[in-house]
């Protein structure tokens, strides 16, 4: 098992190299010179050329990328063109807010989604099931930013119960986390339901019933653990969507996270900040997925013994 974890951790290295390569490559295509951006409109071509040389922008792409990785390994992702602060610090400053939002949203999604899916599956073809499924379908169909605005309209503007922007108290967390978590809630509900329905039909569930296991235990002990295996995968993947959705949610609620930092930086063409934000989120996502895969082995003994 340790070997497996170690192997997976080592596999993260090429993935991260790939991610930085893609992000660096895409950003390299941005037209306009960062040197001009830094110096302003009045700069002479000579000044710009001098700064480009200083920043290493006149070197071939692959050398620039090499330097980027070399410095990145030391935690140096360059400085913001605008604030001139180290990018790594800026992103790291904002990171806890994003993580808090994503974790809160995921908690909502798991705490509501899994029980809703179980209930829906065990009451298949009843009104409860139909209502849950319709709600879940609406949930996956709603654009996250629109939902955010509608929640602001209802709970901040009309009812005045909750703040619409900022992040100073836990009250501020409520609307953004509901906004961000809703589609994941819906997806987890749907996944849990279909996985549960699949498992309930299995022979070993019939065996459990034939043993005289009470129905509650058949569902919560025998069926659920098996049904959760694919759901856990979905939860891991959803974390990626959540981190992506956080960009939009943070923009709606002026939530001071990495997503908002990234959007603001895009508008100001502050490329180092944009790159570092994306790379940071990708690293987080990869680590979460790794954690999910390890968790997987604990739920499913078949997988665990594969790696022993």
């Amino acid at each position, binding site marked *: 098992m340790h070997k497996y974890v170690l192997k997976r951790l080592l596999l993260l290295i*090429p*993935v*991260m190299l*790939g*991610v930085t*390569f*893609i*992000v660096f490559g*895409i*950003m*390299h*295509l*941005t*037209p306009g010179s960062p040197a001009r951006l830094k110096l302003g409109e009045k700069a002479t071509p000579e000044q710009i050329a001098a700064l480009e040389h200083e920043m290493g922008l006149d070197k071939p792409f692959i050398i620039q990328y090499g330097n980027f990785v070399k410095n990145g390994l030391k935690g140096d992702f360059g400085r913001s063109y605008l604030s001139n602060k180290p990018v790594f610090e800026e992103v790291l400053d904002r990171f806890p807010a994003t993580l808090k939002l994503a974790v809160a949203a995921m908690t909502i999604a798991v705490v509501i989604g899994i029980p809703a899916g179980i209930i829906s599956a065990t009451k298949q073809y009843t009104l409860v099931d139909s209502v849950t499924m319709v709600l879940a*379908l*609406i949930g*996956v*169909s*709603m*654009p*996250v*930013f*629109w*939902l955010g*605005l*509608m929640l*602001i*309209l209802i709970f901040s*503007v009309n009812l005045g119960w909750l703040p619409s922007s900022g992040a100073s108290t836990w009250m501020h967390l409520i609307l953004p986390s509901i906004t961000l978590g809703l589609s994941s809630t819906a997806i987890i509900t749907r996944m849990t339901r*279909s996985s549960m329905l*699949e498992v309930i039909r299995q022979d070993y569930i019939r065996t459990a019933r034939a043993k005289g296991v009470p129905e509650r235990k058949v569902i919560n002990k025998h069926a659920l653990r098996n049904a959760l295996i694919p759901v856990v995968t979905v939860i891991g993947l959803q974390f*990626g*969507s959540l*981190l*992506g*959705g956080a*960009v*939009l949610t943070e*923009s709606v609620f002026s939530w001071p996270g990495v997503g908002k930092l*990234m*959007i603001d930086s*895009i*508008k100001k063409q502050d490329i180092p900040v*944009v790159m570092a934000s*994306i790379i940071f*989120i*990708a690293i987080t*996502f*990869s680590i979460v*997925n790794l954690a999910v895969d390890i968790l997987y082995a604990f739920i499913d003994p078949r997988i665990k013994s594969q790696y022993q």
Partner: protein
Amino acid sequence: MVEKIKKKSQWREMWDRLKVNKMAMLGLGILVILILLAVFAEQIASYEDVAIKMDTSIRLQGPSKEHILGTDEFGRDMFARIVHGARVSLKVGIIAVGIAIIIGGTLGAVAGFYGGTLDNVIMRTMDVFLAIPSILLAIAIVSSLGSSMLNLMLAVGISSIPNYARIVRASVISVKDEEFVEAARAIGARDNRIILKHIIPNSIAPVIVQATLGVAGAILSTAGLSFIGLGIAQPQPEWGAMLSGGRAFLVQAPHVVAFPGIAIMITILSLNLLGDGLRDALDPRLRQ
């Protein structure tokens, strides 16, 4: 010949199963209406004369007889803009998915068919793409290439390539060793012929399911990008951009935000209903 009959009956069977699925038919119905609206947008309301015609004297008006969905912050008719917006959204969504299917499908087919190192290189590259949440990848691409409809399609399309590569690869691997492919190989058919004539047709069904759901995802991503100002430029009506524009007037004129969002939701809902139905029709084991 025999295969042709078999395939026809497979589609027929799929349609027969889809037909009885009321939710899927509802989705298909809504989708057909949306497509008709998009196709005949110009006949319903002129682009030049209504959809982008500003009249600040009637700005932010609520729904009325003249403007059934009210007017926006520049006094433009919301209904006309939403109808023309359908055109943009569906076009971007479908073309983006088309790009993803062509590139992702080819990569997946090649990886699955040849296996070995090539397969490894392609799929590990796809893994790298998957490590970046797709909306972030799209944001990066648009912010670097600049916002235009074409770049939007490219960005959204490229960011969903790995999905199709995986699906096509999986179905190629599952049909690769079937007898009719072996037979084709035995009579000396060339690789590209085997891929085009035998393997692609057999992996189409799962791709269609993913594509239906994928168009929904692409429309959502497009709207999201437009919402944060990386999408389609004014005055062209795009749902996400409309929503973003109305945002400042959320309190005075909530309809400017509400209606485009509802339009997005209905579109996504119809595609999801249809996609779910197609998936169930494809795998009858899941229904019952």
